[in-house]
Each structure stands twice: as C-alpha cells, then as structure tokens.
C-alpha cells in the first residue's frame, strides 16, 4: 500500500505569520470515500477534532508551525502542516497492517514535505532523545547540523551547517532574528533545552521575510507557548562533572482570552573539572539564571503576544583555582571570564479576517539590551549591544489561492559598543562602536499551480545607514515529479555585519596577537543548492532518502587568518576567493516497528584564501558519518537512543614557524563520538539516564605550552576534539496537566 497524502495546496512552513487561524478540511480514503470520525490533532497540543458526517473537520487556533496528525482506524496516520484560507483535502492510505500499528504517532520529524525550502523539523520528542542543556546541544540526533569545539578553555560549542560556520546561519526565535550580533558565538547557550518546543532547520538561503542575514541557512526555534504548555513541567538534571540544572515551566489561564506562561532555568557547575591534568579546567565553572514570562491574548480577530526575558550568566575558567570574583588583570593564575546579562521585551500582534480567510497581517517586535564583561589572561573585553527590531507582514492572495503573496517592511536598530584591551605591546587595543539603522521592504510571491509544484520568489531591499543599499533576491522551487520523489532548488543572496572580537573569542585564549587590518564591510554571499527527497514504502515501512548539494560563494568575507603566523590572528577583508560546497545523503528506515535507523554521510569543502593560499579552512572535518538508532515502545514507555558520529581528519592551522616542541601536526586524526540515552515514561513524566562521549575520547594535550600561559607559545585555541571525556547524566521530567 502506498503511503501517499495529497493536499489541495501547499504553503511554505517557514511563513512567519503567527496569528492563530482556523483550518478546515475533509479527510478521504485513497479511493475517495469520506472518512467519518477520523481524528485530526495538533502534534504539540491537546487540541483536536473529529471529522463529521461529511468527513469535514474544523480546527481553531492553529499556527503555521503546528502539525496536524490525521488518523483513522485501518489507515496509515499522517502528519502534515496546516493550510490556511482554503479547505484541505487529506487522503489517507489504507493500511494492511494489523490494528496495533495504526496508533497515532505519525512522522514526528524529518523533511517537511510541502515546503518549497528544504526544511527539517525537530520535534520535542526528538529533542528529548538527547536530554540537552541548551540549544547548542540540541542538534545531536540531527544529521544536518554539526557541532564542533571552539577551544580548550571556554567550553563553547559551535555549530556548522553545510560545512560553513554557524555565524552564516540565521537563528530565529519564533521568527525574530535572535542569536546574532555579539551573541553569534555564545547565544545558543542562553536558550535552555527545556524551553524548546521544536526546531526548524532550513538549508540554503531562507525566505526574505526574516531579513537578509540567512546566508547559508535558517534555524527557527519555537519555545513553549501558553496555549500548548503543560500546567507544570519540572525538570531536574545532574551530570558526572557536577553540573546541576533546575527547570520549571508553568502555564496559567487568565480568563477566557488571556493566558500566561513562565519558563525558568537555573544551572550551575561549581566543580573544577580537569581530567587531563594540565592545570586548566576542561570547561569553565558556570552559573546561569534565565527567566521568560509571556502573555498571550486570543480574540476573535486580534491575536497579541508579549514576552519578557532576562538572564544572567557567569563563566570562570582557565587555570585551576580561578574564581568568579577574581580580577583578570591582577590575577596570579591565567583566567577566563565571560559574564553577561540580557533584558528583552518581544512580541507579536496579528489580525485575521474571518470573512476573508486568505488575508492577514502581523507585526513582530523585539527590544533588547545585553552587556558582556570578560576576557582571558590579560586580555579584557567589554561589550554592550542594544537592539530594536520590528517586522510587519501582510499576506493575501491574487485572484485565487494559486497566487499568494507576503509583503511588508522591517526596521533594525543595532547599537554596538565594544572595548578590547590586550595589555600587550604588539596586540590589538581597540574601541569599536557603530550604530546600524536599517529600514527594509520585502515582497515574496508564491505560485502554487497544483499540488506538485511550488515556486517562491522573493526580494527585499534594505537601506543600511553605514553600508548602503542591500538588494536580496531569493528563489525557491519545489517539484514533486513522482509521488515518491521531490526535487527542490534554491538560490539567494545574503549579508551580515561581522563582529570580529566576539567571533574570535577562542583566539583570546592564546598568545596570538590580534592584528586587525580591515575596514568594516558587510559580508556578502550567494548560496545555491539542489536537493532530492525520496519517500518509498519498503516492506510496508517508510523508507526516506534525502540527498542535497549546496554551493556558497563569498563576495566579501572578514577573513580570520590563523595560518599567516602561529603567533598571530590576522583579520582582513577577503581579497581572493572563498567558497564552500557540501554534499549530504541521509537515509531513514524503521528496522522494526520500534527501532528506527537514521544514517548520513556528508562531504564538505570550504576553501578560503589564508596566508596567500586558497586552502581548506581549519578545524573542519571534510568527511563525516552519522548513525542514529532510536528505539521506542508504545507511547514512549521505554525509549533508547544511540548516536554515533565519525569526524574525518581536519586541517589544523600552520604552526611550522613555532619552536619545534610547540608545533602541531598539519592534520588532526579522525575520531568517533558516541552518545546514548535511555528513558522510561510514566503517566506523570519520565526519568532518563544517558552518556555523552561514551567511548571517552579526548584530544590529548589540547593546550600548547600549558605551563606558561602568559608566555609567547601558549595556545588553547588549537582544539579539534572533546577536551572533557565521558559525561554520564540523569534527570527527571514531571508534568501536570
């Protein structure tokens, strides 16, 4: 039996209109018989409907990011994104399996079929496969986002997508660009894992609606919302390094139209962890308090949301004994500090028209203040970023729903004030100040002639007060040319302003002099890609294979050159070529009803001209292999997961000019990392036990010359693998509805 699903029309799921809207539709069998009494439920929500006498259903309060789970006894269930403004025609295929296998589970994650973009959804259930502390660790069971290690002191994990550094990926929180500016390196650690409801990973230049910054990809993080939260969600976590976490989410209804959610996170690591006994903590001591309070108003036509987020985060690392309160400039030992505080007000306002369901408008806004005080050794850093952002989006159709468009205007105010003091005669001392004011307009047209084709063409123009006019065209196309094969193509331009000091925080922990030979210009790139998604039924089980190829070329880039000299980091604007290609093939198949296997192979090439040579960027595995085994019994009573990552050898920065004993090889070895977790569900929640880096693989001697941290050969930035070894963790999740 075929596992097919037909929709009358499609919309892009990365649509950032957020107003909750009504979805109507009808559920039929593959032979066009109306299915009466089929259930239609929202994936992350308790809301649900049952089809009536005429097989019709109606669901209120559906957001574009929701997923409908449609099921009927004796038929394959399916999960699909909502379509607004017209009646959905959903077809379910008959199942010839026995009845037990028709439990409502749906395809909970994977490529979103109907989107014109190559978009991969990570659901809450997928996120819980690896109980993680924050957003930077949320991609463990996902093959499209790679995680790497910044250095041997700050404990920072960085992401890469399609072989390109994560700073070229636009990371949004509910459609609002959030992890950017001074936060582009550290920002993901300030999004607690227990707050995340789902993550959308889009490969290739994204929609123009959210701005010009998605140069190679777009990640959208949805946090828990008052309408979809449990009354209480409590989580406690403890790991073998001594890290402790307490998380609490609370939902309260305030009358008929108002609801409120509180998300709270507190964590600390007060132990000094130095497993390799080099006198340096493998990761810094840390403490963080993070609070988000959000309110939601749902009227007949008007929807409004407002939220407040404040957090405090302190890190103290470096040589053993260095403490939170110690002063870097006078400290006897070598220390690392990064203290940051942020306050933010954000929200949305949206209007729908019950008599004209295809029409709506929305406004997203955010105002934030964040400061950073930190540094390493004698280098001191101070930074303040003030941001105001607004984005107005209007959506309608032209004549019929074959032609849909979204248009609007945005404004970004971004003020930076940074100071860097190296306390060295040869390195950089600087004050960097700038205020960006960027009004912009955009238009995106969607042509949906039939259920097999979607074309999204968009363009935006932004008027940057410092760098002139940005023109950002983007094109996305999707063609399902057979029921099982979908071809997608995309091309688009992107821009961003680099923040050289923060983006090189791993160089702070080295004796390298920072040499800044650049005029600040926006980084500018073109990204193009093609992908093929295949869905087949093999022995009555869904086999899915995704292959994609992306090409990114930079017209301007701020090059961070570590090859010029082993005692320098030279920063300059791109003079010669810089480009990246990536190829990925990924397959997923349930070996049994309970055991799913997902595997991927990735090949990257990312060439940038450093030290006058066009060469592979350092610290990047050109070849990677990924394997995930996921076992789950009904209703996730028992769940077990194992993920294996093979990281191919990486090029390391040239150290041939160092004294012999401090030279490093030109390439790292390849290595395996294995993570696993087992959890047991109960009516009230679950308990879990897991391990990261179970094979206890560590980079030997991650720090060059650790005995002389203030000397001229010290370098903790030459890190290609894990510094801390195996971590065992356990936790409990408790929910009250």
């Amino acid at each position, binding site marked *: 039996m075929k596992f097919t699903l037909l929709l009358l029309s499609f919309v892009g799921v990365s649509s950032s209109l957020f107003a909750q809207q009504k979805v109507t539709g009808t559920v039929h069998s593959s032979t066009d018989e109306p299915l009466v009494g089929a259930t239609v439920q929202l994936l992350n929500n308790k809301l*649900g409907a049952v089809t009536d006498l005429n097989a019709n259903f109606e669901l209120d309060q559906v957001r574009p990011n929701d997923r409908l789970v449609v099921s009927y006894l004796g038929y394959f269930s399916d999960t699909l994104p909502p379509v607004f403004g017209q009646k959905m025609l959903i077809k379910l295929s008959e199942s010839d399996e026995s009845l037990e296998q028709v439990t409502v589970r749906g395809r909970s994650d994977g490529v979103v079929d109907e989107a014109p973009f190559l978009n991969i959804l990570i659901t809450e259930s997928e996120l819980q496969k690896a109980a993680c502390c924050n957003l930077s660790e949320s991609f463990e069971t996902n093959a499209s986002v790679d995680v790497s290690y910044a250095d041997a002191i700050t404990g920072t994990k960085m992401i890469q997508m399609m072989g390109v550094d994560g700073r070229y990926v636009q990371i949004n929180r509910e459609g609002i660009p959030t992890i950017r500016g001074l936060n582009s390196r550290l920002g993901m650690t300030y999004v607690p894992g227990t707050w995340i409801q789902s993550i959308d990973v889009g490969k290739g230049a994204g929609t123009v609606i959210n701005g010009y910054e998605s140069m190679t990809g777009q990640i959208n993080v949805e946090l828990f919302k008052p309408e979809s939260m449990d009354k209480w969600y409590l989580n406690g976590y403890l790991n073998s390094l001594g890290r402790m976490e307490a998380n609490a989410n609370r939902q309260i209804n305030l009358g008929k139209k108002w609801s409120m959610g509180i998300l709270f996170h507190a964590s600390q690591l007060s132990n000094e962890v130095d497993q390799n006994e080099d006198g340096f903590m493998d990761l810094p001591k840390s403490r963080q308090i993070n609070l988000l309070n959000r309110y939601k108003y749902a009227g007949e036509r008007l929807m409004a949301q407002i939220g407040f987020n404040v957090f405090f985060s302190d890190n103290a690392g470096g040589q053993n004994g260095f403490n939170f309160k110690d002063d870097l400039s006078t400290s006897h030992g070598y220390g690392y500090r990064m203290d940051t505080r942020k306050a933010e007000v954000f929200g949305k306002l949206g209007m729908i028209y019950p008599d004209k369901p295809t029409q709506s408008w929305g406004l997203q806004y955010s105002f934030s203040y964040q400061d950073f005080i930190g540094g390493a050794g004698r280098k001191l850093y101070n930074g303040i970023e003030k941001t105001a952002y607004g984005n107005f989006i209007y959506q309608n159709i032209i004549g019929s729903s074959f032609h849909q468009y979204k248009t609007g205007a945005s404004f970004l105010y971004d003020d930076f004030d940074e100071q860097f003091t190296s306390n060295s005669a040869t390195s950089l001392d600087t004050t960097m100040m700038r205020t960006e004011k960027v009004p912009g307009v955009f238009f995106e047209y969607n042509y949906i002639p039939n259920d097999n084709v979607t074309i999204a063409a968009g363009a935006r123009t932004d008027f940057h007060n410092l760098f002139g006019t940005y023109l950002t065209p983007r094109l996305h196309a999707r063609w399902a040319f057979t029921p099982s094969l979908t071809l997608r193509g995309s091309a688009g331009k992107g821009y961003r302003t680099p923040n050289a000091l923060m983006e090189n925080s791993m160089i702070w922990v080295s004796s390298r002099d920072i040499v800044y030979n650049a005029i600040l210009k926006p980084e500018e790139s073109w990204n193009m890609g093609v992908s093929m998604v295949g869905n087949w039924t093999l022995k009555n089980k869904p086999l899915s294979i995704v292959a994609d190829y992306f090409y990114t070329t930079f017209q301007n880039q701020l090059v961070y050159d570590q090859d010029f000299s082993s005692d320098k980091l030279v920063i300059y604007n791109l003079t010669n070529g810089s480009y990246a290609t990536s190829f990925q093939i990924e397959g997923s198949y349930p070996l049994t009803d309970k055991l799913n296997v997902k595997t991927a192979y990735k090949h990257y090439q990312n060439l940038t001209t450093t030290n006058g040579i066009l060469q592979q960027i350092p610290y990047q595995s050109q070849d990677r292999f990924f394997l995930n085994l996921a076992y789950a019994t009904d209703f996730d009573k028992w769940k077990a997961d194992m993920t294996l990552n093979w990281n191919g050898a990486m090029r390391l920065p040239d150290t041939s000019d160092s004294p012999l004993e401090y030279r490093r090889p030109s390439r790292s070895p390849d290595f395996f990392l294995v993570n696993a977790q087992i959890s047991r569900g109960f009516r009230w929640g679950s308990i879990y036990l897991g391990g990261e880096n179970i094979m206890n693989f560590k980079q030997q001697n991650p720090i060059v010359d650790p005995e002389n941290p203030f000397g001229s050969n010290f370098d903790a930035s030459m890190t290609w693998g894990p510094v801390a070894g195996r971590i065992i963790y356990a936790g409990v999740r408790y929910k009250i509805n």
Partner: protein
Amino acid sequence: MKKLLLTCFIAAYAFAVQAQIKTVEIKTSAICEMCKKTLEKDLTFEKGVKSVNLDVETKILNIAYLDRKTSPEILRKRVTMVGYNADSLKRDVEAYNKLEECCKDGAHDNDLHKKKDH
C-alpha cells in the same frame, strides 16, 4: 562460559516472565480514535501491563498483563478512572467530564458509519 551463563539466565528469566502473562478483555464505552488513544496511553503506564489494544468497533480493550503485579479487577477499576465504563463497572463521572468532547456520549451519533451499524 560467562556469556553462556548469562544467556541461560536471560532465557530463564524471560521464560519465568512469559509464564505469568495473562490477557483480559474488557468491554468499554469507548467510541472513537481519541478514546482509543486516551485509554491505550493510560493503561500502557499502568503497573504490570505489557500491552494494550482497543478495538473501537467492538469497544473491547485487550490487555496483556503480569499476573503477579495486577489483576483484571484493578485494570477494570483503572478504566473507570480514565472515564469509561468497564464491563459492569460504571465510569468515574469526574474523569468522564474531563474527556475530550469527541469522547462524550452521543458525539458520533450523526456519523455515517455509526448509522450503518444500527
């Protein structure tokens, strides 16, 4: 040798567990897919329950359970606490009131396939 012993031990244990699994059929007042999900999910997490399946057409809930850990009486009682009648036991009214609208009495009276049944 160690491995062999372990295998024997596991086999023996599995056999011992196997021997105690019994099944019970409980006639419920479930009426739709939503009821099926609600009941199956709840009973999955009941102590001693190995597997659960509800046939919506016949309204019969089939439960495999460990004899040593629970009993048909306890399971029937649990079904009533979820909000459904269980054989001759009446449902808990408070639990019933909390059920989804589609699981309430008469919610599917106008459905086509129900009429065919009559």
